[in-house]
């Protein structure tokens, strides 16, 4: 029997009697990262990377949770468990399992290029690798972060010169922290929407060094700094927080902004292709670096990516999980 299996509750390790990113309440849950499609409430006990812990507590309330630094192993019913950097968001991890010489790595969500904030992705050698494939199409090839940041800055300045307030829509966990330096390095003040303020504070309390930001509050509306940008979660309402006489220009920061038709569908003023997931070359290099004999593809374009891997001589199969097609939560991290 393989060490990891797909059960109705998600990926299950029978020997260790625990789940990884289960999609329902279980006894013991190992969590790759705190995005809502991976971290769900109701379980008896959680285990995650140190920096994921405060966010998990923020999002799931009072829970029993243990945390580990990257690379430090623990044993559970004889199964060796360790967390390794996934480079997706702060605290995100790949989970490695080892038992009687059998090794598995569950990637969770990951990206291979460093973002300057989360600990960069480290390939972990294994026999069985479960990879995501959110952007598993060859049209997805990310531009260097510095290039996107400078485009974002230029757009923001152009909006300000037309007397509009630039608003960047970014997912609350990950993107909202990642893009801060784009503005902070140029001394552009940043307002954070209340819905992402708490995540920001939790990271500060956990000792993460983040640029200085201002809270977006109704009280600020009157004294709004004209040279500032606003960062807000997608689709959030801003009316209460901004000066009445000003127009807003909204930009979306997401890997989904790559394709023109999808950019248009969002109906924003601008779109920047900036993703916390691996692009096509990133996925391929990650698969290669693990040296795994068996590849399981989940979370995205699994059919296409699996077919391609098999044609290229890998032994790959699709892993159909509840992640897919769940539009509401899928949006969280793209």
């Amino acid at each position, binding site marked *: 029997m393989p060490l990891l299996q797909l059960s109705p509750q998600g990926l299950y390790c029978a020997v260790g009697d625990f789940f990884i990113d289960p999609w329902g309440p279980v006894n013991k849950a190992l969590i790759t990262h705190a995005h809502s499609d991976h971290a769900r409430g109701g379980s008896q006990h959680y285990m995650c990377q140190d920096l994921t812990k405060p966010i998990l507590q923020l999002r799931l309330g009072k829970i029993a949770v243990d945390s580990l630094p990257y690379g430090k192993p623990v044993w559970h019913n004889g199964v060796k468990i360790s967390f390794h950097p996934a480079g997706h968001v702060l605290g995100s991890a790949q989970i490695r399992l080892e038992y009687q010489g059998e090794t598995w790595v569950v990637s969770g969500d990951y990206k291979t290029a460093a973002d300057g904030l989360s600990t960069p992705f480290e390939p972990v050698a294994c026999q069985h690798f479960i990879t995501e494939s959110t952007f598993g199409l*060859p*049209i997805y090839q990310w*531009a*260097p972060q510095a290039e996107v940041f400078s485009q974002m800055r230029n757009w923001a300045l152009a909006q300000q010169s037309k007397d509009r307030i630039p608003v960047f829509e970014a997912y609350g966990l990950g993107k909202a922290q990642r893009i801060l330096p784009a503005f902070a390095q140029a001394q552009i003040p940043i307002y954070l929407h209340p819905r992402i303020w708490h995540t920001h504070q939790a990271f500060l309390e956990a000792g993460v060094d983040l640029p200085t930001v201002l809270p977006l509050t109704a009280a600020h509306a009157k004294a709004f700094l004209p040279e500032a940008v606003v960062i807000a979660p997608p689709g959030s309402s801003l009316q209460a927080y901004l000066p009445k006489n000003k127009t807003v220009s909204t930009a979306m920061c997401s890997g989904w902004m790559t394709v*023109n*038709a999808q950019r248009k*569908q969002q109906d924003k003023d601008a779109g920047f292709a900036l993703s916390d997931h691996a692009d096509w070359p990133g996925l391929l290099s990650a698969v290669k670096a693990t040296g795994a004999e068996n590849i399981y593809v989940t979370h995205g374009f699994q059919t296409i990516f699996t077919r*391609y891997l098999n044609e290229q001589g890998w032994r790959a199969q699709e892993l159909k999980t509840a992640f897919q097609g769940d539009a509401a939560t899928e949006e969280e991290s793209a």
Partner: protein
Amino acid sequence: MKKGWAQYVQLWQSLQATSSTLEKKECVAAYFAQAPAADKTWALALFCGRKPKKLCSSKELLQWCGEYTGLPQWLLEEAYQFTGDLAETIALLIPRKSPERPNQAFGSVTEQDWDLVDFLNQLLALSIATAEDKKAFLFSFWQSSSRTQAWVGHKIITGGFRIGVAQTLVQQALASLLQQSPADMALRLAGQWSPLTHSFDDLLSGSGAAQDQSKPYPFYLCHALDLSLAELGEPAQWQAEWKWDGMRGQWIKRMNQCHLWSRGEELVTENFPELAALVADLPDGLVLDGEIICYQNNQPLPFAHLQKRIGKKKPSKKLLQEYPVVFLAYDILEWQGQDLRAQPLHERREKLTALCHRFPLSQLKLSPSLAFAQWSHLETLHSQARAAQAEGLVLKHQDSVYGTGRKKGDWWKWKTAPLHIDAVLLYAQKGHGRRSNWYTDYTFAVWDGEKLVTFAKAYSGLTDAEIKEVDAFVKANAKEKFGPVRTVVPQLVFEIGFEGIAASNRHKSGVALRFPRILRWRKDKPLSEANTLADLHQLLKQYGA
């Protein structure tokens, strides 16, 4: 280093990025202010829809992309399926160069030492080349292109390039840049020219007396009637005419040349050769204001007929026979080279009537002045407008001069009530700009037996409070999601008004409406009492083309 190609791509990108006409105009003007001289005429040609021939088929392009990237065709097809635009797909598939992928050079920096004219000249030269040569060109093009450059390049190469900007907007942008009138710009661009034979300066900045000769007078426009008829005073002081449903135009003959202008300051002489031909019969130094309209068997035809002719330069014989037009003259603005606009209307009318009698031409007709002794007679006439194929009435004061623009008081239009039908809301989509959070764009349907068939889209006509109410309904009753479109449970009934109806095989319902809009929300009407497709076809029979 030549930058013209990169600048042109930048222009294309900026034009895509904004929906504001003003910003588009600024982009166009900024481009022409700094583009290399030789590029400007080519850019103008592309604006005017003069595209180079396509270099290769989409299939060839996909195949070569496969060879270049080493990706299998099925994967390219999947990517194309997902993206929906071949030119864009291939631009995205070409490996992006970045310092993080060291064996490739850096991406967004252009390495192409080209102007637009160089790019187009290469295409021109390649048009007779072998497939192998075309492929070799594309491989080197891909090596040196940013994604947007590749995207625009692919569009031009596959013959699908559209810049998506109205020509009038380009004329206005050039006019402000060169400090000339938009009409002048239109005129200069309208003639025979080619980037191969004309420079930008030849084309646009020569000061020609010939151009002034063709200039139209500014059109004088009517105000919508917002008074009661009695308030207008004595009926005898007013001239009434049908408000024709065609295209307002000015017919000019000066120096034995004919120039026909539309109200949008667009030169349309080439579109209506039968009106240009009048030049042989009418005297010189003449300017007429009137309506260009399709006309057959002594009857004006609905606007849908004229629509087949609008925008068609050099129409075919068949089109000319099937959709013949006439010029229904309203007014005479110049006679024997003399500007008559300051004369009172009744004097101009006398001259116009005399002219039309002296020159009985089948393509020139006098728009009749309608006799009425009392305001009540005029009301009767108004109710007959639709039967006369008119949109309503126009009232002009007998003493009025031919002014400029739109002034209130002496020229009024009195439109008929629109046609209307009760329809069911079936699809909703979010609006733009200020309304981007609300579902404000609706598609409506009528009953066809047990089924609902969509027949019109409408965006306007509801109050903000009503929009909020409909929005909440859509959010609570959405059934399916196709991109930004939501299918809703059929329940809400609206009265849809429109100005005209025509048969159409492009629409499922078999009809196309002119200016559809929401007249009111029929909260009083149950779903079952919405109109039927048969009702719509009845309207088509009565009023349609």
